[in-house]
């Protein structure tokens, strides 16, 4: 990273006089600018996707994983006794940090979205819910189920892993695909800039011949091209970054119930990543053009 910054600083300081030895070539300039802008635009979204799914997978596998719910459904007169029995079992279960029966008000709040505020829950045969908070190590769900089956017949353990696991797996896959996309985007940009550089070098064969005749070393000639393509790629990437971030900011802001889609964006330190993209684009362009220039120059007379 340091090396890249040093090179970029050197490029930006530049030798504007030496740059003039290569005539401005409209077509390759526009191609490079466009490729860098488009690829950075895509990279912003791939990055946002990777970061958001990463966050999601992390949240699901930490917060949700640490809580479970025990449901007691039995005849009304049995509820109190079975709840007490269940709490008793839970308190002696290794891996359970705390267990607590939800109050009537809390249960009402949970059910309100479905039944409305006026339904008297106390009069309905609603199961009693017990919230379980796990320790970091977690408990043995199967063991707990067996004990509950013996001691609290009306208890059903819902440990969330059933639906959580595939979601966490999906989130990790999406994140991996996002990262793969970033890699592909970088590769395509390198390929396009290599093509543009080849075309620029071919178009300037006579310029290169004259420069060689008056004593220019390959490095000097390569630098003139490399500097140009790197600066163009950086400008294009800045443009693409601005458009990409604009698009991200225009997305509706994250809502708790919106879940995944509205969470697509950058948070906290994550904001650093998109701003590294122009530097990365510059590094890719630098590397691709230098390779192309060196290879072509070495083949010349």
């Amino acid at each position, binding site marked *: 990273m340091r090396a890249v910054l040093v090179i970029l600083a050197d490029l930006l300081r530049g030798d504007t006089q030496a740059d003039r*030895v290569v005539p401005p070539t409209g077509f390759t300039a526009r191609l490079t600018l466009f490729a860098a802008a488009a690829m950075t635009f895509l990279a912003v979204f791939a990055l946002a996707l990777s970061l958001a799914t990463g966050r999601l997978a992390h949240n699901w596998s930490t917060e949700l994983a640490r809580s479970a719910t025990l449901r007691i459904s039995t005849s009304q007169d049995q509820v109190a006794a079975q709840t007490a029995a269940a709490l008793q079992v839970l308190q002696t279960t290794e891996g359970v940090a705390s267990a607590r029966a939800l109050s009537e008000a809390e249960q009402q709040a949970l059910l309100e979205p479905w039944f409305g505020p006026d339904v008297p829950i106390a009069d309905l045969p609603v199961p009693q819910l017990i919230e379980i908070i796990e320790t970091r190590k977690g408990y043995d769900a199967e063991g707990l189920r067996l004990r509950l089956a013996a001691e609290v017949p009306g208890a059903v353990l819902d440990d969330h892993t059933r639906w959580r696991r595939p979601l966490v797996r999906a989130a990790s896959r999406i994140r991996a695909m996002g990262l793969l996309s970033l890699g592909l985007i970088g590769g395509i940009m390198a390929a396009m800039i290599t093509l543009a550089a080849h075309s620029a070098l071919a178009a300037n064969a*006579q310029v290169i011949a*004259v420069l060689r*005749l*008056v*004593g220019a070393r390959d490095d*000097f000639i390569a630098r003139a091209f490399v500097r140009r393509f790197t600066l163009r790629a950086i400008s294009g990437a800045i443009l693409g970054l601005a458009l990409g971030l604009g698009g991200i900011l225009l997305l509706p802001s994250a809502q708790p119930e919106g879940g995944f889609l509205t969470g697509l964006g950058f948070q906290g330190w994550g904001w650093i990543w998109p701003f590294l993209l122009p530097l990365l684009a510059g590094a890719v362009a630098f590397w691709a053009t230098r390779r192309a220039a060196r290879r072509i120059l070495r083949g010349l007379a």
Partner: protein
Amino acid sequence: MIELDNLAYSYGGGELLSEISLRLAPGSFHFLTGPSGAGKTTFLKLCYGALIPTAGRAMLFGQDVRELGRDDVALLRRRIGVVHQDCQFLDHLPLAENIALPLMVSGRDVAAEAQNLDDLIAWCGLSHRRNALPPELSGGERQRAALARAVIMSPEVILADEPTGNVDWEMSQRLLQLLVELNRMGKTVMIATHDLSLIRAAKSQVQTRVLRIANRRLQLAGADL
């Protein structure tokens, strides 16, 4: 500085040049003549490392051209000023910048040498054209510009391939004058030409040797000129 030892060259067919040996002493002034197609341009290219001899040895500043890398060749071209027969320029840069190009590519401070550049451009009679682009120049102006570019680095050796091919008599005298002047400053000069009057004009000003390519060999021409 330039030593050719029993050198031969062929473009692929038969040998164009054979059994050529020559030591170019520092400060000498040579003409190279011969009919068109005899191999004068080829010979000069062997002298500045653009061609590698197919047999024998060419030593430039003590280095065998066969052992030169691309960077070595580049550095060599800063020490040998060449006026090419088909002078080529960077068509998008004005004349003055084209003449300063060798300074620029060798990393010298062009601004610091602005006075030298102006003097040289004036010497070659190009002051009024200094902002013109090369495609706008006449043949003679291009040749003068090529000479100016060849000497801007103050090279030890100057090789000129038909430098007066496109200029009128007066201007050819002027170019010759410049080359004679450079020779008096200690530079080694070799001019390929078939213009015998140019050679006669030079003989009155400077001690020259005339080399002639005939029958693939390099011969020292006698006093028959």
